[in-house]
C-alpha cells in the first residue's frame, strides 16, 4: 500500500494530455531536483521532482501524458493507481495539477472531468496561450475558474511564465479542504455505480468509487480480470446493469464520452471565443505542405537523410568519436607507462579502458540522434512521420509509430529502443524493441568493411556504377530489415498476439522547438546510456577479459622464443640503426606470437576449441569461434580479437592491410587449406548482421521492458537466427563457389 507523506510535505501529481508542455512545466517547477526510475512490473517511467516555496517542500510526481484516465492495460493502470494512492511504494498525492492546452481546451477538459471525480484538490494550469492567440482563440481564465470550481493558473511553461503564481496556488491548497467529487453522468448511471461499489465492498472493502465506475464502463474485460478475477456473480451483475442502462438510452461505453463532452460544452459556454473567420495559421500552411503526397514525401526523405548524414558525418560525429577514442588511448598510455606488466595492467587496458571506451565511442552518434528525435518531437513532426509511414508498418501489424525507433536503430539500437517509448501500446512497443537490434547498426560496419574488402572481388557492373562490394554490404542491411519483418510478423502470430491497435492519434500543431527542452532530453537519455556503460557493460567486459587472460602460463608461451629473445637483445646492444630496426621488428613479431599463444590457451581459446564442432558447419575454425565469443560485449571487438589470435597484436582495425592479408592466408591446423574464403566471409557477416552481440543493447532492453525476460529472449532468438542464417549462407554459397 501507499506510504503516507510526512506532515506538511505536499505531494502533487501532474497529469494532462500529451503535447501540452507538461514535461516543460515539470522541469520548470522542479529544476534539476529530479529522480527517474521505473514502476515495478510495468514499463512506465517514474519521475519525481521537488521544489521549495517559502520553506514549504513540495514533491512532484510527473505521470505519463494521457488523453483519458481509463485503464485498459497494466501500464495505464499505474497512473490511476498513483492518483488513488494504491500504487505500492508511492506517496499518495495530496493534490492533482492538470495541464490544459489553451489552444485545445475542449478536448483537454475531458481528463479534467475525470480528475474531478477523484475528489482530490485540483489545480488547472492553462498553458500554451501563445499558440491559442496565434490561432485567434481567447480563453477567459477567470470565467473558466468559476465554472470549474477549481483554481485556474495561466502559465507559459516554455518561457517559465506563471510558475511563481502556480507554486503559490499549490501551497495555498494546504489550507483548503478537498473539493467534493463531481460526476457528469446521468442519475441512473451514478446509481448503478453506487450499487456496484457496494457489491464490490463485499469482496474488497476499499474499492474507490472511481474504480467501480471504470469497471462498469470498461468493456474490454481488462478491469474485470484485474478487480474481480473469475467472480461470476459480479460479472453477471455488471452485464445486466449495462443492459438495463442501454435500455434507458445510456449505452456503455459511449455514455462516458457523451456525458463528459456535454459537461465540457456547458463549462465552456462563453469561456472560449474564436475569431469569426478561422485564421489559417502558419501551422496549417506548413501542415498542408508536409502532409502533401509529393511535397510531404520529399521533405520527409530529406529530413531523414539529413539526420543520418549528421549521425555518420565526419564533421560532427566522426571528429567527436575520434576525440573520445583519442582520450581513451591517452588514458591507456598513461596506465601503460605507470604500471608494471601483469594482470592488473592488462585488466585496466585490455578490459576496462578498451571495453568501456569501445562502447562510449558511440556516445556522439547517440547524442546526435536524440537531439534530432527531440527536435522532431518538440516541433510536432514526429507524429507526422508516424502518420506518413503508418500504411507500410500496418502491413506487418505495427503502426507508423515504430518508424523512428527502427530508423534510429540503423545508427545504434540503443537510442532506437529508447525512442520506442512514444509507442503507447505495450505489445507494439515490445515488438519494436525486440526487432530493433536487427537493423544493421554502425558497430557492424567495421566487420562488414574488413570482410568485404578482404574477400569480395573488387568488381563493378553497369559502367562502374554498382560495385560488388557495395552490393554485398547493402545486402547485409536488407537482410536485417527482412529478418525484422519476419520476426515482427511471427511474434504477432505467436507469443504477442492481439488485434492491431488503433492509430487514433493527435497531430499536434507545429511549434518552434524549445532548445533547452531538446538539450535536456538529449542529456537525460545520453546519461542513461552512460550509466549503463558504467555498470553492466563494464561487468561484461571484465568477464570476457578474464576469460581471455586466464589461465596464464607465460613461461610455456615464451619458452620457444626464449633463446632467440636473449640473442636479439644482446645483438641490439651493438647494432646500427638499420639492424636495430630489424631486430625491434622481430621482437614485436615474437611478442605478437606470444600474445596469440597465450590467448589460444586461455579459457576463451579453450571455449573456442570446445565449440569448434558447433561452428564447423558455418565454415569457421576455433579462432573465429573464440572471437565471436569474445565479441559478446560489443560486435566490433571481433576485429581486435582476431588481430591477437592471428598474431598481429590487438591494435588492428578494419582498414588494416596486414590483418586482411593474414586472415586471407590463415590455414586449418595441419593442412594447407585456407580457413577464409568467400563463403566463410559471408557466413561471418550474416552471423554478425543477425546476432545480438551487444551488451549495451541487452542492458537497455532490460531497462525499457523492466524485466530480464526480454533481453534474454532477444539474445536467444537472435543468436539462433544468426547461427541458422550463417549455416545456410555457408552451406549454400559453398555449394556454388567452392569445388
Amino acid at each position, binding site marked *: 500500500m501507499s506510504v503516507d507523506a510526512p506532515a506538511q510535505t505536499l505531494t502533487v501529481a501532474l497529469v494532462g494530455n500529451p503535447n501540452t508542455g507538461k514535461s516543460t512545466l515539470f522541469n520548470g517547477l522542479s529544476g534539476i531536483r529530479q529522480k527517474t526510475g521505473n514502476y515495478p512490473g510495468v514499463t512506465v517511467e517514474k519521475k519525481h521532482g521537488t521544489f521549495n516555496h517559502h520553506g514549504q517542500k513540495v514533491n512532484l510526481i510527473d505521470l505519463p501524458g494521457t488523453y483519458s484516465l481509463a485503464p485498459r492495460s497494466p501500464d495505464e493502470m499505474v497512473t490511476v493507481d498513483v492518483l488513488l494512492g494504491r500504487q505500492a511504494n508511492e506517496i499518495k498525492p495530496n493534490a492533482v495539477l492538470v495541464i490544459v492546452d489553451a489552444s485545445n481546451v475542449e478536448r483537454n477538459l475531458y481528463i479534467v472531468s475525470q480528475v474531478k471525480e477523484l475528489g482530490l484538490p485540483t489545480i488547472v494550469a492553462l498553458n500554451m496561450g501563445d499558440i491559442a492567440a496565434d490561432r485567434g482563440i481567447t480563453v477567459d481564465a477567470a470565467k473558466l475558474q468559476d465554472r470549474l470550481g477549481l483554481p485556474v493558473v495561466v502559465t507559459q511553461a516554455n518561457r517559465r511564465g506563471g510558475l511563481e503564481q502556480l507554486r503559490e496556488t499549490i501551497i495555498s491548497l494546504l489550507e483548503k479542504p478537498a473539493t467534493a467529487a463531481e460526476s457528469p453522468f446521468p442519475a441512473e448511471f451514478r446509481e448503478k455505480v453506487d450499487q456496484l461499489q457496494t457489491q464490490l465492498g463485499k469482496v474488497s472493502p476499499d474499492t474507490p468509487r472511481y474504480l467501480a465506475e471504470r469497471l462498469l464502463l470498461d468493456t474490454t474485460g481488462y478491469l474485470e480480470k484485474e478487480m474481480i478475477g473469475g467472480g461470476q456473480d459480479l460479472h453477471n451483475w455488471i452485464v445486466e446493469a449495462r443492459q438495463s442502462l442501454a435500455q434507458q438510452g445510456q449505452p456503455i461505453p459511449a455514455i*462516458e*464520452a457523451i456525458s463528459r463532452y456535454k459537461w465540457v460544452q456547458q463549462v465552456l459556454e462563453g469561456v472560449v471565443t*474564436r475569431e469569426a473567420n478561422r485564421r489559417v495559421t502558419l501551422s496549417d500552411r506548413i501542415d498542408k505542405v508536409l502532409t502533401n503526397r509529393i511535397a*510531404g514525401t520529399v521533405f520527409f526523405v530529406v529530413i531523414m537523410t539529413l539526420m543520418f548524414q549528421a549521425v555518420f558525418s565526419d564533421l560532427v560525429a566522426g571528429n567527436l568519436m575520434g576525440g573520445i577514442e583519442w582520450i581513451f588511448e591517452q588514458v591507456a598510455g598513461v596506465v601503460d607507462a605507470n604500471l608494471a606488466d601483469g594482470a592488473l595492467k592488462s585488466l585496466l587496458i585490455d578490459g576496462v579502458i578498451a571495453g568501456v571506451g569501445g562502447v562510449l565511442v558511440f556516445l556522439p552518434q547517440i547524442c546526435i540522434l536524440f537531439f534530432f528525435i527531440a527536435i522532431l518531437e518538440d516541433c510536432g513532426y514526429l*507524429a507526422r512521420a508516424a*502518420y506518413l509511414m503508418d*500504411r507500410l508498418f500496418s502491413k506487418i501489424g505495427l503502426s507508423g509509430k515504430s518508424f523512428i525507433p527502427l530508423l534510429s536503430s540503423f545508427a545504434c539500437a540503443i537510442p532506437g529502443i529508447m525512442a520506442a517509448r512514444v509507442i503507447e501500446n505495450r505489445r507494439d512497443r515490445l515488438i519494436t524493441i525486440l526487432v530493433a537490434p536487427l537493423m544493421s547498426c554502425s558497430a557492424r560496419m567495421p566487420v562488414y568493411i574488413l570482410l568485404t574488402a578482404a574477400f569480395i572481388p573488387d568488381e563493378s557492373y553497369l559502367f562502374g556504377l554498382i560495385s560488388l562490394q557495395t552490393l554485398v554490404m547493402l545486402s547485409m542491411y536488407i537482410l536485417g530489415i527482412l529478418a525484422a519483418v519476419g520476426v515482427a510478423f511471427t511474434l504477432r502470430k505467436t507469443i504477442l498476439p492481439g*488485434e492491431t491497435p*488503433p492509430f*487514433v492519434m493527435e497531430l499536434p500543431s507545429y511549434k518552434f522547438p524549445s532548445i533547452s527542452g531538446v538539450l535536456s532530453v538529449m542529456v537525460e537519455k545520453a546519461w542513461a546510456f552512460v550509466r549503463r556503460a558504467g555498470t553492466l557493460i563494464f561487468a561484461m567486459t571484465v568477464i570476457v577479459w578474464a576469460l581471455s587472460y586466464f589461465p596464464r602460463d607465460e613461461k610455456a608461451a615464451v619458452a620457444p622464443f626464449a633463446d632467440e629473445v636473449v640473442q636479439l637483445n644482446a645483438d641490439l646492444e651493438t647494432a646500427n640503426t638499420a639492424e636495430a630496426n630489424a631486430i625491434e621488428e622481430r621482437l614485436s613479431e615474437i611478442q605478437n606470437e606470444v600474445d596469440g599463444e597465450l590467448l589460444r590457451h586461455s579459457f576463451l581459446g579453450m571455449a573456442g576449441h570446445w565449440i569448434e564442432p558447433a561452428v564447423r558447419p558455418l565454415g569457421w575454425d576455433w579462432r573465429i569461434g573464440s572471437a565471436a565469443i569474445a565479441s559478446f560485449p560489443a560486435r566490433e571487438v571481433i576485429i581486435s580479437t582476431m588481430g591477437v589470435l592471428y598474431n598481429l597484436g590487438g591494435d588492428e582495425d578494419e582498414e588494416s592491410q596486414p590483418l586482411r592479408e593474414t586472415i586471407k592466408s590463415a590455414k586449418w591446423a595441419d593442412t594447407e587449406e585456407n580457413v577464409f574464403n568467400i563463403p566463410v566471409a559471408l557466413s561471418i557477416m550474416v552471423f554478425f548482421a543477425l546476432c545480438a552481440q551487444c551488451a549495451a543493447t541487452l542492458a537497455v532492453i532490460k531497462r525499457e521492458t523492466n524485466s530480464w525476460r526480454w533481453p534474454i529472449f532477444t539474445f536467444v532468438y537472435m543468436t539462433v537466427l544468426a547461427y541458422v542464417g550463417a549455416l545456410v549462407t555457408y552451406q549454400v554459397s559453398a555449394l556454388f563457389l567452392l569445388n
Partner: protein
Amino acid sequence: MSKLSQLAVGQEGVVASIDASNIAAVRLMEMGMTPGCPVKMIGSAPFGDPLEVEIRGYHLSLRRTEADLVELES
C-alpha cells in the same frame, strides 16, 4: 447515411453515431468524436491511409478502417 471515411478532402460532416463495440471507437470518442460533433476531412497520407481530420479545433489521424466505424448525419 454516409461514413466518415467517404468524406472528400475539404468536405465537412456531423457525427451521427459510432460503432462502440470496437476499442478504436472508444478511443475516438475519448478524443472528442461524439454524436453531434462537426468533423472536416483534411487529407490522407501518401499511401491513401491513414486519414487526417479536424475535430473540436485540432487535427486527428485515424485509419480508414477506424473511420468506417463513424456514421455521419445525412
